């Protein structure tokens, strides 16, 4: 089989903990020519072509990159994505798409107007467990679904203090861990009508600064279906794995509970994951979309819709009341 001409891909920033994994997967592909920009000097992402500034990454090839992967601190997504759109470069942007709805809207519009692919990095979209849930909901196995409860609990990301810096991250756990489940719910149900959220700062108090570390987000959908997301960074520091994602759906046809990161070999203090490589599936989908010139799920639009859910959750924390999504 012929190897297609390698796609010129720039991975922009090593600020996000996912950067190292994406870089390794991209570097291993024969159909990708990769440059990694590490302007902050995190120094823990290895690549044959590693540069110290975004300029060098944009200039790595005479014609520039064909696609970028944005793994900067959340607040910097906007500038990188807008620059990519200006240059006619396709984008895979780490979640959350942006720290404000206005930024997310601008990014989606810019990429649409430029005719470039914008996708949001929701790897769990590619989980076989999530696919099983989507199928069971769609084919009627669960009957009429009336409620869902999701958890996306993790440790406070280590060695990346910006995750708990509300300026750079847009918030704390509410921003970091609501969107994965919000994206799955979006793919099942569309957008919620109202969002209610409560947060606190009890976990990781010594390290997390002003960021919320615990949160419960309740979404109500047209017709009354209710879903709650526990977005807390509640995985203890000494746990053998980073955390996980579960979602339970209940309906007139019974219940389905999924645990996207369940596949592992265990032992006291041991956790050897063996499941589908979700990051690899995400990158495969993105590179296919780049070659086809057309975005596939998870798109920038779902990135925008989940950013709106987070913004409503933050507004609810401020007001203490449920927030209609339409009021944003």
């Amino acid at each position, binding site marked *: 089989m012929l190897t297609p001409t390698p796609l010129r891909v720039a991975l922009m920033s090593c600020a996000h903990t996912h950067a190292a994994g994406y870089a390794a997967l991209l570097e291993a592909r024969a159909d990708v020519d990769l440059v990694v920009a590490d302007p902050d000097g995190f120094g823990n992402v290895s690549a044959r072509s590693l540069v110290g500034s975004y300029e060098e990454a944009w200039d790595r090839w005479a014609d520039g990159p064909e696609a970028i992967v944005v793994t900067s601190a959340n607040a910097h997504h906007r500038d990188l994505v807008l620059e990519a759109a200006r240059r006619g470069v396709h984008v895979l942007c780490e979640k959350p798409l942006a720290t404000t709805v206005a930024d997310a809207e601008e990014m989606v519009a810019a990429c649409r107007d430029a005719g470039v692919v914008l996708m949001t990095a929701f790897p769990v979209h590619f989980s076989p467990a999530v696919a099983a849930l989507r199928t069971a909901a769609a084919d009627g196995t669960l*009957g*009429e679904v*009336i*409620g869902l*409860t999701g*958890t996306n*609990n993790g440790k406070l990301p280590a060695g990346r203090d910006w995750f708990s810096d509300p300026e750079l991250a847009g918030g704390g756990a509410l921003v970091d861990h609501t969107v994965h489940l919000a994206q799955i719910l979006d793919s099942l149900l569309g957008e919620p009508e*109202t969002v*209610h959220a*409560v*947060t*606190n*700062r*009890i*976990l*990781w*108090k010594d390290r997390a600064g002003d960021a919320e*570390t*615990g*949160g*419960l987000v*309740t979404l*109500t959908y047209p*017709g*009354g*279906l*209710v*879903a*709650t997301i*526990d977005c*807390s960074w*509640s*995985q*203890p520091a000494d*746990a053998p794995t980073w955390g996980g994602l579960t979602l339970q759906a*209940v*309906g*007139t*046809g*019974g*219940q389905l509970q999924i645990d996207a990161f369940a596949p592992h070999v265990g032992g006291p203090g041991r956790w050897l994951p063996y499941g589908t490589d979700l990051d690899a599936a995400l990158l495969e989908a993105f590179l296919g979309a780049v070659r086809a010139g057309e975005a596939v799920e998870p798109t920038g639009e779902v990135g925008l819709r989940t950013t709106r859910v987070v913004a409503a959750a933050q507004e609810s924390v401020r007001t*203490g*009341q*449920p927030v209609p999504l339409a009021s944003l």
Partner: protein
Amino acid sequence: MPQFSADPAPDQHSSPLRVGIVGTGGISRAHAPGWVEAGAELHCHSVAGAEEFAAQFGARVHADLGSLLAAVDVVDVCTPTPEHGAIVHAALDAGLDVVCEKPLALTAEEADDLVAHAERAGRRLLPAHVVRYFPQYAAAKRAIDAGEIGEIAVLRFERTGSFPRQPWFGDESLSGGIVMDQMIHDIDQALWMAGPAVAVHARQHTAAATDEVRTAHVVLTHASGAISHCRGLWGAPGTAFRYTFDLAGSGGCLRYDSAGDSGITFDAVAAARQASGDGFLPEVTTFPSPYAEEILDFVAALSSGGAARVDGADGAEAVRVAGAALQSLRTGRSIAC
């Protein structure tokens, strides 16, 4: 305080504790073995099923409440919730201590009134919040109190069952619905473990196809800053009873799932033989009956005048918070409490 000398051993000389069970439906059958184990002399009164109950547990049937109240030391109120108030008041007026199934009442005002009456009468009012006697929850509570998971931050509780067989449970005006009747157990747990609540937000959804499949989500904000999620479900016919909790603190997490490994697992071949009667496999549980533990704790508290694991104020507080959740359901607002 106690007007009797309760003695859990039936073969000793002091006279046995005389207990009057009012209402001999489902929950009375769960309470009765505890009273029997405590050596109590049982009396009962009910609009239906009293003779059968009496035959099963060795109780004396009373044709009316007044006759029962005149014959006992303690009344155990096991009627549908709307009848609790009148019976509790009558028992207190008769100078008796009272055990009352949860919820104490359908409104905070009514529950507070019962607690105040008990205080005025100098009698005990013990609400049967049995989940405090499930060893899993009790173990978690002890660990939290001992500081084993640091400062408690995020609590999640789930309770799942089939739609109750007695139709009155499904009538929200009679039972308070899934929040007041089922979830109140987990609301009580959240308050027990994380302290008083200051705000409540609730959502409930009933299937369009059948009103017997319902779920409710309630989020509590505690005065301590902790936050709790309670998820109740009356599931599709055949839904197995299940309860879970997940408690996260600054120093660790505690988890329990009743659908997890019980320590007794039949493979599919053995399970099929058990169901068909081909093999004799005894029904066993891996922990003592929480209902019996509850009744024995109440007997000890009544006997000593000391504290029980749950008291009337706890029962009234659970009703107050569940009532705030119902108000949130009606208004769509988060309710301060």
